[in-house]
């Protein structure tokens, strides 16, 4: 398996391309945009996009799918039935196999009701629920508590060597995020107590 990261300044988002070593059917994760450099990356490695995984229905994570569907006969996977008029195959927690790759689907709500984390081998595609040193944004304290509970139970219990590939910013590891999360969460609680 090969993994490529594509960064776009539009939405400052990361798109990930997963494919076999010598070309063939490939998977895209969160195509926030479909630009010439992403197309070149796909074509240079002789990939055909057969599956597109969306972590959550925020435009900077799926805006590229309209263009992708003009080029490739791909299936879009998400937790919602439709993204801007494009129908999706709805995913629930569990495991699926796409292009010979086993993908574990982990629901982590809080940043949005439909957030999914995809695990492929030891790679975790976290979208916006967790990035390097940052938990996902939430609208209020209740949803923040919900997100923290989900992260503690569903991600931080995983093998520390797991590699975290977020929708924004640099990669990280599960162990590093667990360590930094404890520190940052204590700071957040202190701030909230002093404000109260």
């Amino acid at each position, binding site marked *: 398996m090969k993994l490529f990261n594509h960064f776009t300044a539009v939405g*400052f988002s990361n798109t990930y391309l997963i494919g076999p070593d010598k070309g063939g059917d490939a998977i895209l994760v969160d195509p926030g945009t479909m630009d010439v450099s992403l197309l070149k990356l796909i074509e240079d490695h002789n990939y055909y996009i057969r599956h597109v995984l969306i972590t959550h229905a925020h435009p900077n994570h799926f805006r590229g799918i309209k263009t992708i569907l003009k080029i490739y006969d791909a299936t879009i996977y998400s937790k919602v039935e439709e993204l801007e008029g494009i129908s999706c195959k709805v995913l629930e927690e569990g495991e699926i196999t796409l292009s010979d790759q086993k993908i574990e689907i982990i629901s982590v709500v809080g940043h949005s009701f439909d957030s999914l984390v995809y695990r492929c081998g030891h790679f975790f595609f976290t979208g916006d629920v967790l990035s390097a040193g940052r938990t996902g944004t939430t609208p209020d304290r209740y949803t923040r508590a919900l997100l923290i509970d989900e992260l503690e139970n569903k991600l931080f219990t995983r093998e520390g060597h797991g590699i975290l590939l977020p929708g924004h910013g640099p990669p990280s*590891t599960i162990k*590093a995020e667990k360590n*930094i999360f404890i520190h940052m969460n204590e700071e957040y609680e202190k701030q909230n107590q002093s404000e109260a």
Partner: protein
Amino acid sequence: MFDLDYCSYPDCKKKVRTGSRLCEDHQSWQSVEHFSSLMTEKDLIGDIKAPGLTFKNLDLRNKRFIDCYFHHTQWINCHFDRSIFQMCFFDESVFMDTSFTKVNMKHCVFTDSVMTNIDWHGSDLISVNLNNIHAVNNNFSESDLYYSRFIAAYLKDVKMIDCNLKRVDFSASQRKGVNFKYSNTAEAYFDTEEIQ
């Protein structure tokens, strides 16, 4: 109470002996000499995994490091000047008297590392994870640090003169004697004051 450490090799759950970072299964073939000669002889260093090793006095100038896993390594008096790095993991590592001048680095991870006397002068460090690092006497001057993160980092006597700090995150960092002269600090994110 002592800690029990696990083998640093990915997905290995065996415990290691005191003074070692690899279990006996992985220690025998993963020699420093093997990886040192592999890296010095080749220009393209791709997809190698060498966790837990200590490298000294290596000349690794003008190399390309792609998808490498150097978790928990030590680099003493090594020189990576003008090299290219993509998606490389140096988390929980120790760097001493090492130079990365004029390197081009994207989506790399140095989280939880200790860096003493490191020269990064004139480099492009794009979307690099430097969270929770302990950096003393580092020189980042004239570097582009776009979208990199120094969350919860300890920075002492660090030069960041004339750097691009657009979208650089210094949240919860401890800074003492950090020189930001001529850098666009207004475009970076800070939530703590410098320690006097």
